[in-house]
């Protein structure tokens, strides 16, 4: 487990992630959106795409474009949400040791890594990220 953020970590910029419709309920992104569940074998990080457009809407559209290239079947009722990396790091890493970090994984693809496996801390991390994500998302059909 790392005690400090890696030098190669991303510390600013914006990232987007696609979630299927079942991970969205009542205008809220569910915390399962931040589970490590992608791929076979499973990945050790939660996948995101770094985006560089100027406006929030353009960033969501840019993220949607990456997802469409990567995934064959994306649901139009799914969501794309946007997170500000520096805000996430500031709001989540509020203890002596960092709890999360973002690392490039062949940009624009990048990963969110958990640096703790404590259940309560993971619960807090995911709830914080879901809270932040729930204020900035669009349905896929609004972005196509």
């Amino acid at each position, binding site marked *: 487990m790392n005690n400090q953020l890696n030098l190669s970590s991303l510390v600013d910029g914006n990232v987007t992630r696609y979630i299927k419709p*079942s991970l969205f309920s009542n205008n*809220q992104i569910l*915390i*399962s959106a931040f589970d490590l569940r992608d791929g076979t074998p499973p990945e050790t990080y939660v996948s995101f795409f770094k985006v560089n457009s100027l406006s929030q809407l353009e960033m969501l559209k840019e993220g949607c474009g990456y997802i469409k290239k990567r995934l064959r079947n994306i649901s139009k009722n799914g969501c794309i949400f946007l997170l500000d990396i520096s805000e996430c790091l500031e709001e989540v890493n509020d203890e002596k040791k960092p709890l999360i970090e973002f690392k490039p994984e062949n940009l624009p693809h990048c990963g969110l890594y958990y640096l703790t496996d404590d259940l*309560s801390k993971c619960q807090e991390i995911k*709830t914080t990220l879901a*809270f*932040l994500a729930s204020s900035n998302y669009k349905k896929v059909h609004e972005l196509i």
Partner: protein
Amino acid sequence: MQSIKFLTKQTISSFYSVKYPQINSLYNTKIKDIYRQKKINRFDQDLWNNWIANLKIDLTVKNIENELLLEESIFEVDIKLVFEKLNLLIRDYEKERALCSALHEISSNSLKNYLYLYPHIENYHSNLNIDSDTGFLNIGFSGKQSELLNALVTDTGEIHYSLVGRSKRIFKITGVTKIRDIEDFKQFKRVIRML
């Protein structure tokens, strides 16, 4: 009529071992209305806990032909909804698990603990999901000021919860509820009242 496809034969027999007349008398219309107005639990704690305690849940069976049929006269719509939600949730999760074996097996003890908790949280709007790292059920609640409260119901009596909201800045209240007796699951309402 509703069905619960993830429950087994043993579950059916344990369900039918509960005495109908006792339950029916608890759910007649007048009592339901009074309970609704007073916003108190509509469940007989002992009957409910006893039923859950005797449930034998086998979530590993893929194609279960036997279905548990819930009579409308016995259970409230809410109860049928919770089983429908669970049924869908578990089927979706198992489908995904078939594609990605790394997803943790669903914890039947966590499921039971959720059911013990259910009568005490039914009046709150909530969503349900399965934590793929642990196989535990997670309940999400939303507050009026868009606060989020997530509670991970473990296979022991521990419930790991975290409330996140925004006041001047983002604030968090995180902790663990430790329940040692099934009758004390009602104490979790103290946590929900923070919303």
